[in-house]
Protein backbone atom coordinates (compact mmCIF):
# COMPACT_ATOMS: atom_id res chain seq x y z
CA UNK A 1 0.00 0.00 0.00
CA UNK A 2 2.78 2.36 0.91
CA UNK A 3 4.98 1.05 -1.84
CA UNK A 4 4.83 4.26 -3.81
CA UNK A 5 7.55 6.82 -3.19
CA UNK A 6 6.83 9.09 -0.28
CA UNK A 7 7.31 12.51 -1.85
CA UNK A 8 7.44 14.25 1.52
CA UNK A 9 10.20 11.96 2.66
CA UNK A 10 11.99 12.42 -0.65
CA UNK A 11 11.70 16.18 -0.37
CA UNK A 12 12.98 16.04 3.16
CA UNK A 13 15.98 14.04 1.96
CA UNK A 14 16.73 16.54 -0.79
CA UNK A 15 16.36 19.39 1.69
CA UNK A 16 18.76 17.87 4.13
CA UNK A 17 21.33 17.39 1.37
CA UNK A 18 21.05 21.05 0.52
CA UNK A 19 21.28 21.98 4.18
CA UNK A 20 24.72 20.36 4.33
CA UNK A 21 25.93 22.03 1.16
CA UNK A 22 29.65 21.61 1.68
CA UNK A 23 29.55 18.06 2.85
CA UNK A 24 27.27 17.11 -0.02
CA UNK A 25 29.46 18.94 -2.51
CA UNK A 26 32.59 17.22 -1.23
CA UNK A 27 31.07 13.77 -1.43
CA UNK A 28 29.68 14.42 -4.90
CA UNK A 29 33.05 15.71 -6.02
CA UNK A 30 35.07 12.76 -4.77
CA UNK A 31 32.53 10.18 -5.82
CA UNK A 32 32.02 11.52 -9.31
CA UNK A 33 35.76 11.96 -9.81
CA UNK A 34 36.32 8.37 -8.85
CA UNK A 35 33.54 7.17 -11.10
CA UNK A 36 34.73 9.42 -13.89
CA UNK A 37 38.27 8.04 -13.65
CA UNK A 38 37.14 4.46 -13.42
CA UNK A 39 34.74 4.75 -16.32
CA UNK A 40 37.22 6.58 -18.54
CA UNK A 41 39.96 4.10 -17.81
CA UNK A 42 37.72 1.16 -18.47
CA UNK A 43 36.46 2.66 -21.69
CA UNK A 44 39.92 3.54 -22.92
CA UNK A 45 41.56 0.31 -21.90
CA UNK A 46 38.75 -1.70 -23.46
CA UNK A 47 39.12 0.28 -26.62
CA UNK A 48 42.87 -0.18 -26.70
CA UNK A 49 42.57 -3.88 -26.04
CA UNK A 50 40.09 -4.06 -28.86
CA UNK A 51 42.47 -2.01 -31.00
CA UNK A 52 45.42 -4.22 -30.18
CA UNK A 53 43.41 -7.28 -30.98
CA UNK A 54 42.48 -6.01 -34.40
CA UNK A 55 46.03 -4.81 -34.96
CA UNK A 56 47.42 -8.18 -34.03
CA UNK A 57 44.81 -9.91 -36.15
CA UNK A 58 45.94 -7.87 -39.13
CA UNK A 59 49.59 -8.74 -38.54
CA UNK A 60 51.46 -11.06 -40.88
CA UNK A 61 51.95 -14.52 -39.42
CA UNK A 62 55.71 -14.38 -39.75
CA UNK A 63 58.26 -11.59 -40.09
CA UNK A 64 61.80 -12.44 -41.22
CA UNK A 65 64.58 -10.03 -40.27
CA UNK A 66 68.26 -10.29 -40.95
CA UNK A 67 70.55 -9.94 -37.97
CA UNK A 68 74.20 -8.98 -37.77
CA UNK A 69 75.96 -8.39 -34.52
CA UNK A 70 72.60 -8.66 -32.84
CA UNK A 71 71.29 -5.73 -34.85
CA UNK A 72 68.66 -5.58 -37.51
CA UNK A 73 70.10 -5.38 -41.05
CA UNK A 74 68.55 -5.10 -44.47
CA UNK A 75 67.71 -8.39 -46.10
CA UNK A 76 68.24 -9.45 -49.75
CA UNK A 77 65.03 -9.50 -51.79
CA UNK A 78 66.20 -12.71 -53.43
CA UNK A 79 65.22 -14.52 -50.24
CA UNK A 80 61.57 -13.93 -51.07
CA UNK A 81 61.58 -16.49 -53.87
CA UNK A 82 63.34 -19.07 -51.73
CA UNK A 83 60.87 -18.65 -48.90
CA UNK A 84 57.97 -19.02 -51.31
CA UNK A 85 59.27 -22.51 -52.11
CA UNK A 86 58.66 -23.69 -48.55
CA UNK A 87 55.50 -25.73 -48.33
CA UNK A 88 52.71 -24.10 -46.38
CA UNK A 89 53.75 -20.54 -47.30
CA UNK A 90 50.95 -18.79 -49.14
CA UNK A 91 52.77 -15.52 -49.77
CA UNK A 92 56.00 -13.72 -49.01
CA UNK A 93 56.50 -9.99 -49.53
CA UNK A 94 59.53 -7.82 -48.97
CA UNK A 95 58.89 -4.70 -46.94
CA UNK A 96 60.65 -1.39 -47.07
CA UNK A 97 60.12 0.72 -44.01
CA UNK A 98 61.92 2.72 -41.38
CA UNK A 99 61.69 5.79 -39.19
CA UNK A 100 62.20 9.34 -40.25
CA UNK A 101 62.95 11.95 -37.60
CA UNK A 102 60.90 15.08 -38.14
CA UNK A 103 62.99 17.74 -36.49
CA UNK A 104 60.47 20.59 -36.43
CA UNK A 105 58.18 18.68 -34.10
CA UNK A 106 60.72 16.34 -32.55
CA UNK A 107 58.81 13.22 -33.51
CA UNK A 108 59.46 10.07 -35.51
CA UNK A 109 57.34 9.11 -38.47
CA UNK A 110 57.15 5.61 -39.78
CA UNK A 111 57.97 5.55 -43.49
CA UNK A 112 56.49 2.62 -45.41
CA UNK A 113 57.21 1.82 -49.05
CA UNK A 114 54.65 -0.11 -51.08
CA UNK A 115 54.36 -1.45 -54.63
CA UNK A 116 51.40 -0.73 -56.81
CA UNK A 117 50.56 -4.33 -57.64
CA UNK A 118 51.79 -6.40 -54.74
CA UNK A 119 49.43 -7.80 -52.18
CA UNK A 120 49.43 -5.32 -49.27
CA UNK A 121 50.04 -6.83 -45.86
CA UNK A 122 47.75 -4.28 -44.32
CA UNK A 123 44.25 -3.27 -45.36
CA UNK A 124 44.86 0.43 -44.80
CA UNK A 125 47.87 0.26 -47.13
CA UNK A 126 45.74 -1.30 -49.82
CA UNK A 127 43.51 1.76 -49.81
CA UNK A 128 46.58 4.01 -49.77
CA UNK A 129 47.96 2.07 -52.74
CA UNK A 130 44.83 2.80 -54.72
CA UNK A 131 45.13 6.55 -54.19
CA UNK A 132 48.87 6.86 -54.44
CA UNK A 133 50.25 8.27 -57.69
CA UNK A 134 53.16 5.94 -58.48
CA UNK A 135 54.21 7.98 -61.51
CA UNK A 136 55.93 10.69 -59.45
CA UNK A 137 57.25 11.01 -55.87
CA UNK A 138 54.08 11.22 -53.84
CA UNK A 139 53.10 10.11 -50.35
CA UNK A 140 49.92 9.38 -48.42
CA UNK A 141 49.87 10.46 -44.78
CA UNK A 142 48.40 8.97 -41.67
CA UNK A 143 46.15 11.42 -39.83
CA UNK A 144 48.67 12.22 -37.12
CA UNK A 145 51.39 12.91 -39.64
CA UNK A 146 49.08 15.09 -41.65
CA UNK A 147 48.24 17.29 -38.69
CA UNK A 148 51.88 17.65 -37.63
CA UNK A 149 52.92 18.58 -41.14
CA UNK A 150 50.03 20.95 -41.46
CA UNK A 151 51.03 22.72 -38.27
CA UNK A 152 54.48 23.18 -39.71
CA UNK A 153 53.11 24.55 -42.97
CA UNK A 154 53.96 21.55 -45.11
CA UNK A 155 50.74 21.46 -47.03
CA UNK A 156 51.80 20.39 -50.54
CA UNK A 157 55.14 18.69 -50.32
CA UNK A 158 57.93 17.84 -47.95
CA UNK A 159 61.71 17.73 -48.51
CA UNK A 160 63.24 14.62 -46.97
CA UNK A 161 66.93 14.88 -46.12
CA UNK A 162 68.85 11.95 -47.60
CA UNK A 163 71.96 10.30 -46.15
CA UNK A 164 74.25 12.53 -48.21
CA UNK A 165 72.53 15.73 -47.14
CA UNK A 166 70.71 16.34 -50.40
CA UNK A 167 66.96 16.82 -50.41
CA UNK A 168 64.24 14.63 -51.85
CA UNK A 169 61.00 16.37 -52.57
CA UNK A 170 57.88 14.25 -52.16
CA UNK A 171 54.40 15.66 -52.82
CA UNK A 172 51.60 15.12 -50.36
CA UNK A 173 48.88 13.11 -52.08
CA UNK A 174 46.42 13.18 -49.23
CA UNK A 175 45.45 11.33 -46.07
CA UNK A 176 44.89 7.63 -46.28
CA UNK A 177 42.05 5.78 -44.71
CA UNK A 178 43.35 4.23 -41.52
CA UNK A 179 41.29 1.25 -40.63
CA UNK A 180 43.32 0.71 -37.49
CA UNK A 181 44.27 4.11 -36.28
CA UNK A 182 46.45 3.24 -33.36
CA UNK A 183 48.86 1.59 -35.76
CA UNK A 184 48.80 3.81 -38.81
CA UNK A 185 48.50 7.22 -37.29
CA UNK A 186 52.19 8.03 -37.60
CA UNK A 187 52.66 6.32 -40.94
CA UNK A 188 53.72 7.83 -44.28
CA UNK A 189 53.10 5.62 -47.30
CA UNK A 190 55.06 6.10 -50.54
CA UNK A 191 56.45 4.00 -53.33
CA UNK A 192 59.17 1.49 -52.46
CA UNK A 193 61.58 3.25 -54.79
CA UNK A 194 61.12 6.60 -53.05
CA UNK A 195 61.42 5.02 -49.64
CA UNK A 196 64.61 3.19 -50.66
CA UNK A 197 66.04 6.45 -51.89
CA UNK A 198 65.39 8.21 -48.60
CA UNK A 199 66.75 5.28 -46.57
CA UNK A 200 69.75 4.86 -48.90
CA UNK A 201 68.81 1.27 -49.58
CA UNK A 202 69.73 -0.49 -52.83
CA UNK A 203 67.06 -1.99 -55.08
CA UNK A 204 67.81 -5.62 -54.23
CA UNK A 205 67.46 -5.04 -50.48
CA UNK A 206 64.47 -4.76 -48.17
CA UNK A 207 63.89 -4.01 -44.47
CA UNK A 208 62.31 -7.38 -43.77
CA UNK A 209 60.08 -10.00 -45.31
CA UNK A 210 56.56 -10.84 -44.23
CA UNK A 211 55.32 -14.35 -44.75
CA UNK A 212 51.74 -15.55 -44.76
CA UNK A 213 50.93 -19.09 -43.84
CA UNK A 214 47.63 -20.58 -44.90
CA UNK A 215 47.24 -22.92 -41.97
CA UNK A 216 47.75 -21.47 -38.50
CA UNK A 217 49.00 -24.75 -37.11
CA UNK A 218 51.89 -24.67 -39.54
CA UNK A 219 53.25 -21.29 -38.45
CA UNK A 220 55.77 -22.76 -36.03
CA UNK A 221 56.95 -25.37 -38.55
CA UNK A 222 57.34 -22.80 -41.33
CA UNK A 223 59.18 -20.47 -38.92
CA UNK A 224 61.70 -23.16 -38.03
CA UNK A 225 62.17 -24.08 -41.70
CA UNK A 226 63.03 -20.45 -42.52
CA UNK A 227 65.42 -20.38 -39.59
CA UNK A 228 67.13 -23.51 -40.96
CA UNK A 229 67.42 -21.94 -44.40
CA UNK A 230 69.00 -18.72 -43.09
CA UNK A 231 70.87 -19.10 -39.83
CA UNK A 232 71.50 -15.34 -39.67
CA UNK A 233 67.84 -14.28 -39.51
CA UNK A 234 65.40 -13.70 -36.75
CA UNK A 235 61.95 -15.11 -37.32
CA UNK A 236 59.19 -13.34 -35.44
CA UNK A 237 55.76 -14.91 -35.26
CA UNK A 238 52.46 -13.24 -34.53
CA UNK A 239 52.42 -14.65 -31.00
CA UNK A 240 55.74 -13.01 -30.16
CA UNK A 241 54.37 -9.63 -31.18
CA UNK A 242 51.18 -10.13 -29.30
CA UNK A 243 53.13 -10.66 -26.12
CA UNK A 244 55.28 -7.58 -26.54
CA UNK A 245 52.23 -5.42 -27.21
CA UNK A 246 50.57 -6.78 -24.14
CA UNK A 247 53.63 -5.85 -22.12
CA UNK A 248 53.55 -2.24 -23.25
CA UNK A 249 49.89 -2.07 -22.46
CA UNK A 250 50.21 -3.57 -19.01
CA UNK A 251 53.02 -1.24 -18.14
CA UNK A 252 51.06 1.82 -19.20
CA UNK A 253 47.95 0.82 -17.33
CA UNK A 254 50.01 0.62 -14.15
CA UNK A 255 50.15 4.40 -14.06
CA UNK A 256 46.42 4.38 -14.15
CA UNK A 257 46.20 1.97 -11.35
CA UNK A 258 48.06 4.51 -9.21
CA UNK A 259 45.61 7.28 -10.06
CA UNK A 260 42.75 4.99 -9.41
CA UNK A 261 44.08 3.86 -6.06
CA UNK A 262 44.34 7.47 -4.91
CA UNK A 263 40.69 8.22 -5.54
CA UNK A 264 39.65 4.88 -4.18
CA UNK A 265 41.53 5.75 -1.03
CA UNK A 266 39.57 8.99 -0.68
CA UNK A 267 36.37 7.09 -1.21
CA UNK A 268 37.28 4.71 1.58
CA UNK A 269 38.05 7.61 3.88
CA UNK A 270 34.54 8.91 3.26
CA UNK A 271 33.12 5.47 3.93
CA UNK A 272 35.24 5.09 7.04
CA UNK A 273 34.20 8.51 8.29
CA UNK A 274 30.57 7.57 7.82
CA UNK A 275 30.91 4.19 9.47
CA UNK A 276 32.77 5.64 12.43
CA UNK A 277 29.59 7.28 13.57
CA UNK A 278 27.17 10.14 13.36
CA UNK A 279 27.97 13.70 14.33
CA UNK A 280 26.20 14.99 17.44
CA UNK A 281 24.09 17.15 15.16
CA UNK A 282 23.01 14.14 13.12
CA UNK A 283 22.27 12.17 16.28
CA UNK A 284 20.19 15.01 17.65
CA UNK A 285 18.20 15.27 14.46
CA UNK A 286 17.46 11.57 14.48
CA UNK A 287 16.42 11.94 18.12
CA UNK A 288 14.03 14.77 17.25
CA UNK A 289 12.51 12.79 14.41
CA UNK A 290 12.00 9.78 16.63
CA UNK A 291 10.48 11.89 19.40
CA UNK A 292 7.88 13.27 17.01
CA UNK A 293 6.86 9.84 15.81
CA UNK A 294 9.29 8.65 13.15
CA UNK A 295 10.15 4.97 13.37
CA UNK A 296 13.64 3.57 12.83
CA UNK A 297 12.38 2.45 9.43
CA UNK A 298 11.28 5.98 8.52
CA UNK A 299 14.66 7.37 9.51
CA UNK A 300 16.46 4.72 7.49
CA UNK A 301 14.20 5.26 4.53
CA UNK A 302 15.05 8.94 4.60
CA UNK A 303 18.77 8.12 4.84
CA UNK A 304 18.35 5.72 1.96
CA UNK A 305 16.82 8.43 -0.20
CA UNK A 306 19.56 10.83 0.80
CA UNK A 307 22.42 8.48 0.04
CA UNK A 308 20.78 7.18 -3.10
CA UNK A 309 20.27 10.66 -4.47
CA UNK A 310 23.82 11.73 -3.73
CA UNK A 311 25.53 8.57 -4.95
CA UNK A 312 23.35 8.06 -7.98
CA UNK A 313 23.78 11.68 -8.95
CA UNK A 314 27.55 11.31 -8.60
CA UNK A 315 27.47 8.10 -10.58
CA UNK A 316 25.50 9.67 -13.39
CA UNK A 317 27.63 12.78 -13.57
CA UNK A 318 30.83 10.72 -13.43
CA UNK A 319 29.64 8.48 -16.26
CA UNK A 320 28.31 11.33 -18.38
CA UNK A 321 31.55 13.22 -17.85
CA UNK A 322 33.55 10.16 -18.83
CA UNK A 323 31.47 9.61 -21.96
CA UNK A 324 31.93 13.24 -22.87
CA UNK A 325 35.64 13.13 -22.10
CA UNK A 326 36.28 9.93 -23.98
CA UNK A 327 33.92 10.20 -26.93
CA UNK A 328 33.69 13.93 -27.52
CA UNK A 329 37.02 15.23 -26.28
CA UNK A 330 38.84 12.05 -27.35
CA UNK A 331 40.37 11.56 -23.92
CA UNK A 332 43.22 14.07 -23.86
CA UNK A 333 46.03 13.23 -21.40
CA UNK A 334 44.69 9.83 -20.48
CA UNK A 335 45.23 8.51 -23.95
CA UNK A 336 48.84 9.57 -24.03
CA UNK A 337 49.49 7.44 -21.02
CA UNK A 338 48.19 4.37 -22.76
CA UNK A 339 49.43 4.87 -26.25
CA UNK A 340 52.60 6.29 -27.64
CA UNK A 341 54.10 3.38 -29.53
CA UNK A 342 55.98 5.96 -31.49
CA UNK A 343 56.98 9.31 -30.11
CA UNK A 344 54.26 10.95 -32.06
CA UNK A 345 52.58 13.30 -29.66
CA UNK A 346 49.59 14.26 -31.73
CA UNK A 347 46.23 13.04 -30.60
CA UNK A 348 44.13 10.74 -32.67
CA UNK A 349 40.73 9.21 -32.50
CA UNK A 350 40.55 5.81 -30.90
CA UNK A 351 37.49 3.97 -32.09
CA UNK A 352 35.89 3.54 -28.68
CA UNK A 353 34.09 0.45 -27.57
CA UNK A 354 31.10 1.21 -25.41
CA UNK A 355 30.35 -1.52 -22.95
CA UNK A 356 27.40 -1.73 -20.65
CA UNK A 357 28.99 -4.32 -18.38
CA UNK A 358 31.60 -1.83 -17.24
CA UNK A 359 28.89 0.64 -16.33
CA UNK A 360 27.08 -1.97 -14.25
CA UNK A 361 30.26 -3.01 -12.53
CA UNK A 362 31.11 0.56 -11.55
CA UNK A 363 27.56 1.14 -10.40
CA UNK A 364 27.72 -1.77 -8.01
CA UNK A 365 31.12 -0.68 -6.76
CA UNK A 366 29.92 2.78 -5.83
CA UNK A 367 26.22 3.34 -5.22
CA UNK A 368 25.32 0.41 -2.92
CA UNK A 369 28.55 0.79 -0.94
CA UNK A 370 27.85 4.43 -0.25
CA UNK A 371 24.25 3.72 0.67
CA UNK A 372 25.30 0.99 3.06
CA UNK A 373 27.91 3.24 4.64
CA UNK A 374 25.22 5.82 5.30
CA UNK A 375 22.54 3.51 6.55
CA UNK A 376 24.58 1.37 8.92
CA UNK A 377 25.58 4.16 11.36
CA UNK A 378 22.12 5.71 11.09
CA UNK A 379 20.65 2.39 12.08
CA UNK A 380 22.89 2.28 15.12
CA UNK A 381 21.95 5.86 16.00
CA UNK A 382 18.26 5.35 15.46
CA UNK A 383 17.95 2.22 17.54
CA UNK A 384 19.43 3.82 20.65
CA UNK A 385 17.05 5.29 23.23
CA UNK A 386 15.80 8.59 21.90
CA UNK A 387 15.36 10.27 25.29
CA UNK A 388 18.52 12.29 24.75
CA UNK A 389 16.38 14.97 23.11
CA UNK A 390 14.68 15.47 26.45
CA UNK A 391 17.85 16.77 28.02
Amino acid sequence: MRAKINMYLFEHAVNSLFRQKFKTLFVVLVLSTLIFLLTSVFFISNSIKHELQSTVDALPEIIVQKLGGGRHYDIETSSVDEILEITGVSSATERVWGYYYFENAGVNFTLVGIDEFEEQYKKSFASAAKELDFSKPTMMLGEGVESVMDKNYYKEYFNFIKHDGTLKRVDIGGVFDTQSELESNDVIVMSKDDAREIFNMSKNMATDIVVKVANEDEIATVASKIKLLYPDVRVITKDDIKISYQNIFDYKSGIFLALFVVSLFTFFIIIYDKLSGLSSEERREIGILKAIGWSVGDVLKEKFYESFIISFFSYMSGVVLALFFVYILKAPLLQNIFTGYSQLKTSFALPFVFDIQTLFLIFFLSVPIYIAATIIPSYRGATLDADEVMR
Partner: protein
Amino acid sequence: MIELKNITKIYEESKENSVTALKNINLTVKDGEVIVLRGASGSGKSTILSLIASLAKPTSGEVVVDGLRVSKLVDSFASAYRRDNIGIIFQKYNLIPSLSVSENIILPLVPLNLHVKEVEAKLESVLEKFHIVHRAYGLVKNLSGGEQQRVAIARANINNPKIILADEPTANLDEKLSLHFIEMLRELKRDGKTIIVATHDPLFFDLDIVDRVLEINHGVLL
Protein backbone atom coordinates in the same frame (compact mmCIF):
# COMPACT_ATOMS: atom_id res chain seq x y z
CA MET B 1 -5.81 7.36 30.84
CA ILE B 2 -2.14 7.25 31.66
CA GLU B 3 -0.95 4.82 34.32
CA LEU B 4 2.54 4.54 35.73
CA LYS B 5 2.74 1.34 37.73
CA ASN B 6 5.57 0.96 40.20
CA ILE B 7 8.11 2.56 37.88
CA THR B 8 11.80 2.47 38.60
CA LYS B 9 14.30 3.91 36.16
CA ILE B 10 18.03 3.41 36.56
CA TYR B 11 20.38 4.93 33.99
CA GLU B 12 23.64 3.17 33.17
CA GLU B 13 22.50 0.31 35.32
CA SER B 14 25.43 -1.96 34.65
CA LYS B 15 28.07 0.69 35.30
CA GLU B 16 29.52 2.14 38.46
CA ASN B 17 28.06 5.58 37.87
CA SER B 18 24.51 4.30 37.67
CA VAL B 19 21.80 6.86 38.46
CA THR B 20 18.47 5.96 39.93
CA ALA B 21 16.29 8.60 38.30
CA LEU B 22 12.92 7.24 39.45
CA LYS B 23 11.95 5.04 42.38
CA ASN B 24 8.66 3.14 42.63
CA ILE B 25 6.54 5.75 40.91
CA ASN B 26 2.80 5.18 40.85
CA LEU B 27 0.69 7.71 39.03
CA THR B 28 -2.62 7.81 37.23
CA VAL B 29 -3.64 10.69 34.99
CA LYS B 30 -7.22 10.81 33.77
CA ASP B 31 -8.21 11.95 30.29
CA GLY B 32 -8.45 15.73 30.02
CA GLU B 33 -6.51 16.32 33.21
CA VAL B 34 -3.80 18.99 33.43
CA ILE B 35 -0.94 17.89 35.68
CA VAL B 36 2.08 19.88 36.78
CA LEU B 37 5.20 17.95 37.81
CA ARG B 38 7.40 20.13 39.95
CA GLY B 39 10.79 19.37 41.35
CA ALA B 40 14.38 20.49 41.47
CA SER B 41 16.78 19.94 38.66
CA GLY B 42 17.69 16.29 38.34
CA SER B 43 14.67 15.11 40.30
CA GLY B 44 13.40 12.98 37.41
CA LYS B 45 10.69 15.09 35.74
CA SER B 46 11.95 14.66 32.18
CA THR B 47 12.43 10.96 32.77
CA ILE B 48 8.74 10.57 33.54
CA LEU B 49 7.81 12.35 30.32
CA SER B 50 10.23 10.15 28.32
CA LEU B 51 8.66 7.03 29.76
CA ILE B 52 5.13 8.19 28.94
CA ALA B 53 6.25 9.02 25.41
CA SER B 54 7.90 5.61 25.15
CA LEU B 55 11.16 7.33 24.30
CA ALA B 56 12.77 5.32 27.08
CA LYS B 57 11.85 2.09 28.81
CA PRO B 58 11.51 1.73 32.59
CA THR B 59 13.98 -0.52 34.39
CA SER B 60 11.00 -2.08 36.12
CA GLY B 61 7.30 -1.39 36.27
CA GLU B 62 4.89 -0.58 33.51
CA VAL B 63 3.49 2.40 31.65
CA VAL B 64 -0.03 1.85 30.35
CA VAL B 65 -1.83 4.38 28.17
CA ASP B 66 -5.47 3.68 27.32
CA GLY B 67 -4.86 0.05 28.02
CA LEU B 68 -1.78 -0.09 25.81
CA ARG B 69 1.38 -1.22 27.59
CA VAL B 70 3.60 1.37 26.00
CA SER B 71 6.66 0.37 28.00
CA LYS B 72 6.61 -2.98 26.22
CA LEU B 73 6.28 -1.72 22.66
CA VAL B 74 8.91 -2.51 20.06
CA ASP B 75 10.25 0.41 18.10
CA SER B 76 7.88 0.50 15.16
CA PHE B 77 4.81 0.31 17.43
CA ALA B 78 6.30 2.77 19.88
CA SER B 79 6.77 5.34 17.14
CA ALA B 80 3.26 4.80 15.80
CA TYR B 81 1.94 5.22 19.35
CA ARG B 82 3.97 8.39 19.80
CA ARG B 83 2.90 9.78 16.47
CA ASP B 84 -0.79 9.19 17.04
CA ASN B 85 -1.09 9.99 20.75
CA ILE B 86 1.71 12.21 21.97
CA GLY B 87 2.73 15.78 21.27
CA ILE B 88 5.95 16.85 22.95
CA ILE B 89 6.95 20.45 23.65
CA PHE B 90 10.65 20.43 24.49
CA GLN B 91 12.45 22.94 26.60
CA LYS B 92 14.97 23.54 23.81
CA TYR B 93 12.15 23.49 21.22
CA ASN B 94 14.12 20.91 19.21
CA LEU B 95 13.29 22.43 15.89
CA ILE B 96 15.49 21.88 12.85
CA PRO B 97 16.93 25.36 12.40
CA SER B 98 17.62 25.23 8.69
CA LEU B 99 14.10 24.18 7.77
CA SER B 100 11.24 26.60 7.37
CA VAL B 101 8.45 26.93 9.90
CA SER B 102 6.05 24.92 7.77
CA GLU B 103 8.58 22.21 7.05
CA ASN B 104 9.25 21.82 10.76
CA ILE B 105 5.59 21.66 11.61
CA ILE B 106 4.73 18.95 9.11
CA LEU B 107 7.71 16.75 10.08
CA PRO B 108 5.53 14.32 12.11
CA LEU B 109 3.35 13.78 9.02
CA VAL B 110 6.22 13.06 6.64
CA PRO B 111 6.34 9.28 7.14
CA LEU B 112 2.57 9.02 6.69
CA ASN B 113 2.70 9.98 3.02
CA LEU B 114 -0.67 11.72 3.19
CA HIS B 115 -2.29 13.53 0.34
CA VAL B 116 -1.01 17.08 -0.17
CA LYS B 117 -4.48 18.51 0.49
CA GLU B 118 -4.69 16.77 3.82
CA VAL B 119 -1.24 17.93 4.89
CA GLU B 120 -2.03 21.49 3.88
CA ALA B 121 -5.31 21.50 5.77
CA LYS B 122 -3.66 20.25 8.95
CA LEU B 123 -0.81 22.71 8.57
CA GLU B 124 -3.14 25.65 8.05
CA SER B 125 -5.22 24.80 11.07
CA VAL B 126 -2.26 24.71 13.48
CA LEU B 127 -0.62 27.76 11.92
CA GLU B 128 -3.76 29.70 12.68
CA LYS B 129 -4.42 28.20 16.04
CA PHE B 130 -0.96 29.08 17.33
CA HIS B 131 -0.68 32.42 15.52
CA ILE B 132 2.28 31.84 13.23
CA VAL B 133 0.63 32.12 9.82
CA HIS B 134 2.70 35.20 9.04
CA ARG B 135 5.91 33.25 9.67
CA ALA B 136 4.99 30.10 7.78
CA TYR B 137 7.75 30.35 5.19
CA GLY B 138 10.49 31.89 7.30
CA LEU B 139 13.45 29.86 8.48
CA VAL B 140 13.17 28.75 12.07
CA LYS B 141 16.59 30.07 12.97
CA ASN B 142 15.41 33.60 12.23
CA LEU B 143 12.54 33.45 14.73
CA SER B 144 12.40 34.84 18.25
CA GLY B 145 12.23 32.44 21.20
CA GLY B 146 8.49 32.94 21.66
CA GLU B 147 7.86 32.30 17.98
CA GLN B 148 10.03 29.20 18.03
CA GLN B 149 7.97 27.84 20.87
CA ARG B 150 4.75 28.46 18.99
CA VAL B 151 6.23 26.49 16.10
CA ALA B 152 7.10 23.69 18.51
CA ILE B 153 3.56 23.69 19.89
CA ALA B 154 2.12 23.68 16.39
CA ARG B 155 4.32 20.72 15.50
CA ALA B 156 3.26 18.87 18.65
CA ASN B 157 -0.38 19.37 17.67
CA ILE B 158 -0.32 18.75 13.93
CA ASN B 159 -1.46 15.18 14.43
CA ASN B 160 -4.09 16.21 16.97
CA PRO B 161 -2.71 14.02 19.79
CA LYS B 162 -4.68 13.31 22.97
CA ILE B 163 -1.68 13.83 25.22
CA ILE B 164 0.58 16.89 25.39
CA LEU B 165 3.86 16.62 27.27
CA ALA B 166 5.64 19.91 27.98
CA ASP B 167 9.16 19.93 29.46
CA GLU B 168 10.11 23.24 31.09
CA PRO B 169 8.03 25.14 28.53
CA THR B 170 8.62 28.59 30.01
CA ALA B 171 12.29 28.22 30.97
CA ASN B 172 13.42 30.41 28.09
CA LEU B 173 10.47 32.83 28.01
CA ASP B 174 9.87 36.17 29.72
CA GLU B 175 6.74 36.65 31.80
CA LYS B 176 4.63 38.08 29.02
CA LEU B 177 5.44 35.16 26.72
CA SER B 178 4.94 32.70 29.58
CA LEU B 179 1.45 34.03 30.11
CA HIS B 180 0.87 33.76 26.43
CA PHE B 181 1.95 30.12 26.60
CA ILE B 182 -0.50 29.50 29.40
CA GLU B 183 -3.28 30.89 27.22
CA MET B 184 -2.39 28.34 24.59
CA LEU B 185 -2.45 25.59 27.22
CA ARG B 186 -5.88 26.79 28.22
CA GLU B 187 -7.04 26.36 24.66
CA LEU B 188 -5.57 22.85 24.52
CA LYS B 189 -7.33 21.95 27.74
CA ARG B 190 -10.56 23.22 26.22
CA ASP B 191 -9.93 20.82 23.33
CA GLY B 192 -9.96 18.05 25.93
CA LYS B 193 -6.29 17.14 25.81
CA THR B 194 -4.47 15.50 28.65
CA ILE B 195 -1.55 17.74 29.55
CA ILE B 196 1.52 17.07 31.68
CA VAL B 197 3.86 19.97 32.33
CA ALA B 198 7.25 19.36 33.94
CA THR B 199 8.46 22.64 35.43
CA HIS B 200 9.83 24.52 38.39
CA ASP B 201 8.26 27.78 37.23
CA PRO B 202 5.99 29.00 40.11
CA LEU B 203 3.66 30.49 37.50
CA PHE B 204 2.13 27.02 37.12
CA PHE B 205 1.73 26.12 40.79
CA ASP B 206 -1.41 28.11 41.37
CA LEU B 207 -3.10 28.10 38.02
CA ASP B 208 -6.84 27.73 37.46
CA ILE B 209 -6.44 25.26 34.58
CA VAL B 210 -4.13 22.96 36.55
CA ASP B 211 -5.91 20.07 38.19
CA ARG B 212 -3.03 18.71 40.24
CA VAL B 213 0.50 19.76 41.14
CA LEU B 214 2.70 16.79 41.95
CA GLU B 215 6.06 17.18 43.55
CA ILE B 216 8.96 14.91 42.82
CA ASN B 217 12.13 14.75 44.83
CA HIS B 218 15.15 12.62 43.95
CA GLY B 219 13.03 10.30 41.86
CA VAL B 220 10.32 9.88 44.49
CA LEU B 221 6.80 11.23 44.06
CA LEU B 222 5.68 13.02 47.21
